[in-house]
């Protein structure tokens, strides 16, 4: 009986399998869709307005639903993508294929490029006879201030007539004029050269100390406001931050300082201006600390300038005094050096520059390392801008001799981002500065009792091969008096 049952069951199973045989063969293999792109890199490149066709090879896509999507929006439901774009940018498009057996997706990148504009033409510097970067001045009673035109094109046989409040004060071949602030008030000053006349305003403010803001127990050692951030173009400018206005730029610096992270000043002349919630006293010792990326082998020296709030309006619109450093009076140092930077005509291009000594060059575009479209600050609306300051002789050279290992030996003392044994004191990341080193236009001591604003400015116009431009990096500024 048991044997009979076994045979019966086996026969039944055989028949059952036999009856389903054809059905099994006809079943669709339950495999999820497969996508093989027609470009092995999945990166496509088209010009603006050009049609891109992407034709993947699909498997297991019977009754499949196709969806090409970009930023979450479906842009096509066809197996083949046809795409065009009117903007030069990069887009990411996902192809998703769904069947009853699953869903598969893959992503492509489409680089939409603008027509190559070719290299920028050589920039043409302004042909103005002279330049007045500033036309209004604030100076405390009892001080003097140097007024002068800059970058005079031709000065042979020239003579300059200076007037104050309509009274001629000087007629000389020398273009410079020292204004003595003997009495409070606002003065109209003119300088005339042949038929060119420039009008300036000098406001003689109350004497030093009038607007002094003593530190209190609640005063912060760190900066309480960044007033201006104007870097020169550089490989770290616009990188990992977007600032479309000066306010966004200064907010970026405040945020970075709060995190003690670096802010790059870009190439020569790039600067930032910081202030405190109190005046910093001149004690004759080190009073200002500036944190940066100090490297024994690679200085990226920045000069430091200080200012009193002479007119008491809380803004850095008064007179800057440079804090002398070891090379301030060196023969190789150029004062009033100015570099004009020119906006590139297209993304991914070097920034051209000219200087007031007849030189020119480029801030290289470092495509291998810094991919942002523009090294020219986004928040600067002008197509060219000039940065003026003190230029130190660059020390950088390629130690390896083959371009691989660049070094930039330091200066003796007195600069930001400059490894030295004098002003770092016992710190590894901070240079320290004395207000007593503030000098006037003629190099004599400014004898400031206190200061309210600090400016750090890249003092080097140099480039180190594949490393690109030398750029001062600042991570913070503080009142060293409050940290002693």
């Amino acid at each position, binding site marked *: 009986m048991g044997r009979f049952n076994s045979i019966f069951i086996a026969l039944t199973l055989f028949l059952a399998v036999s009856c389903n045989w054809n059905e099994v063969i006809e079943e669709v293999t339950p495999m999820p869709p497969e996508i*093989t*792109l027609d*470009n*092995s*890199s*999945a*990166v496509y490149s088209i010009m603006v307005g050009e049609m891109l066709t992407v034709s993947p090879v699909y498997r297991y896509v019977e009754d499949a639903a196709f969806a090409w999507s970009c930023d979450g929006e479906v842009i096509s439901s066809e197996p083949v993508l046809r795409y065009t774009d009117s903007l030069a940018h990069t887009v*990411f498009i996902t192809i998703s294929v769904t069947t009853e057996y699953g869903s598969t997706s893959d*992503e*492509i*990148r489409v680089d939409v490029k603008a027509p190559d504009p070719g290299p920028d033409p050589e920039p043409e510097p302004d042909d103005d006879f002279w330049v007045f970067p500033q036309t209004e001045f604030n100076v405390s009673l009892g001080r003097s201030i140097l007024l002068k035109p800059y970058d005079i094109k031709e000065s042979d046989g020239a003579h300059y007539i200076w007037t104050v409040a309509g009274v001629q004060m000087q007629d000389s071949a020398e273009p410079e004029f020292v204004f003595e602030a003997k009495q409070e008030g606002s003065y109209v000053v003119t300088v005339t050269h042949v038929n060119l006349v420039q009008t300036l305003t000098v406001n003689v403010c109350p004497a030093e100390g009038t607007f002094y803001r003593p530190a209190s127990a609640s005063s912060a050692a760190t900066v309480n406001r960044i007033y201006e951030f104007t870097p020169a173009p*550089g*490989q*770290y400018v616009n990188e*990992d*931050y977007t600032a479309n206005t000066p306010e966004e730029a200064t907010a970026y610096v405040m945020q970075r300082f709060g995190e*003690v*992270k*670096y802010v*790059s000043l870009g190439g020569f002349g790039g600067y930032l201006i910081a202030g405190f919630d109190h005046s910093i006293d001149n004690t004759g010792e080190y009073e200002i600390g500036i944190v940066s*990326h*100090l*490297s024994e082998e*690679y200085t*990226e020296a920045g000069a430091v300038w200080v200012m009193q709030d002479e007119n008491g309006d809380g803004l850095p619109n008064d007179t800057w005094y440079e804090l002398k450093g070891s090379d301030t009076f060196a023969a190789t140092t150029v004062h009033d050096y100015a570099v004009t930077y020119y906006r590139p005509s297209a993304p991914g291009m070097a920034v051209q520059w000219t200087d007031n000594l007849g030189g020119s060059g480029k801030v290289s575009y*470092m*495509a*291998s*390392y810094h*991919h942002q479209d523009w090294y020219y600050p986004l928040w600067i609306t002008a197509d060219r801008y000039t940065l003026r300051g003190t230029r130190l002789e660059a020390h950088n050279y390629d*130690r*390896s001799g*083959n*371009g*691989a*290992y*660049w070094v930039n030996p330091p200066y003796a003392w007195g600069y930001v*981002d400059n490894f030295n044994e004098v002003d770092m004191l016992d710190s*590894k*990341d901070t240079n320290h500065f004395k207000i007593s080193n503030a000098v006037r236009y003629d190099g004599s001591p400014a004898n400031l009792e206190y200061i309210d604003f600090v400016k750090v400015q890249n003092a080097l116009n140099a480039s*180190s*091969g*594949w*490393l*690109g*431009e*030398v*750029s001062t*990096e600042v*991570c913070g500024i503080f009142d060293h008096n409050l940290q002693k």
Partner: protein
Amino acid sequence: MKILRSLLTAVLAMTLAVLPSCMKYGPSEEEEFNVDPSGEGLFIINEGNYMYGNASLSYYDPVTKHVENEVFVRSNGFKLGDVAQSMTMADGIGWVVVNNSGVIFGIDPTTFKEVRRITGFTSPRYFRMISPTKAYVTQIWDPRVFVVNPVTCETTGYVTTDMDYDSGSTEMMVSYGRYIITNCWSFQNRILKIDTGSDSVVKSLVVGIQPESMVMDCNDKLWVLTDGGFKDSDYGYEAPKLLRIDPDTFRIEQSFSFPDGTHASRLTVSAEGDELFWLDNGVCKMSTDATHLPVRPFISREGTLFYGLTINPVNGEIYVSDAVDYVQSGTVLRYSQDGELLDTFNVGINPGSFCWR
């Protein structure tokens, strides 16, 4: 720009004259640690700054989310040394390789106390246990792989190669049966297959300029990431590549080329071995059966300076270190498998590598 320079200084500095090792053991007070030996634990190896002697070890508990920094000096009373390169767990000991101090410390992973010390190196990079009494140590600027006895802490021999002392170097090590595969990274272009029985190189394969990292996937395929060197290098430059290699035949089966100018590094594999991760302007992820490289990072770096990468073998969470600026203390960012930032914690300077306990 100094940031960019710092990135390559560690490498380039070694191309210069041999510098004296910098090992600043300063006495300090010892603390007692005793972490749960059964739980997960992540060591973060902080390189420190080259020639500053400020390398350190951090320890993170993924369960309690608690981090302890400077655990080596706090536990042992002396500093770790100069440029901590890597750490490997083997036989219940954590082997910390301190490159510019030329030393390997064996530590108890629960107390962080030193239990072994192997010296006699000029520039060690990685440690790999072969057997309880045998381990390999790779060096940069040395054509040999050191054979050491981790019990007696003595060097017992060398695996010799055909490289010279000027440019020879070996780097990471991956086990495959009785073989060790090592990549010759700095100013080199090959991987080597070493028979651990005979301590000899049995195969060599040119893979491209500077194979930087390697992993083995779940299909026993070796993946090698080359960094391509750097532009203006005497050795040349090429776009980085990701290669799949059969470790038996020692042949390249698949090659993916990155765009020119890419800086890919730190190839890592998921616990399951079916997904690859690496750093390239963020964290990139790719299935081992993918037909092309990902077209963008899976995790964007967003203003950070990603430097090290590891995957939690238990839950697949992604840990990325941020060197910030190569100068100040770094941070570690912890992401979910989906790339969602879960939290961050502060560690030491230049956190370059990780080691799971």
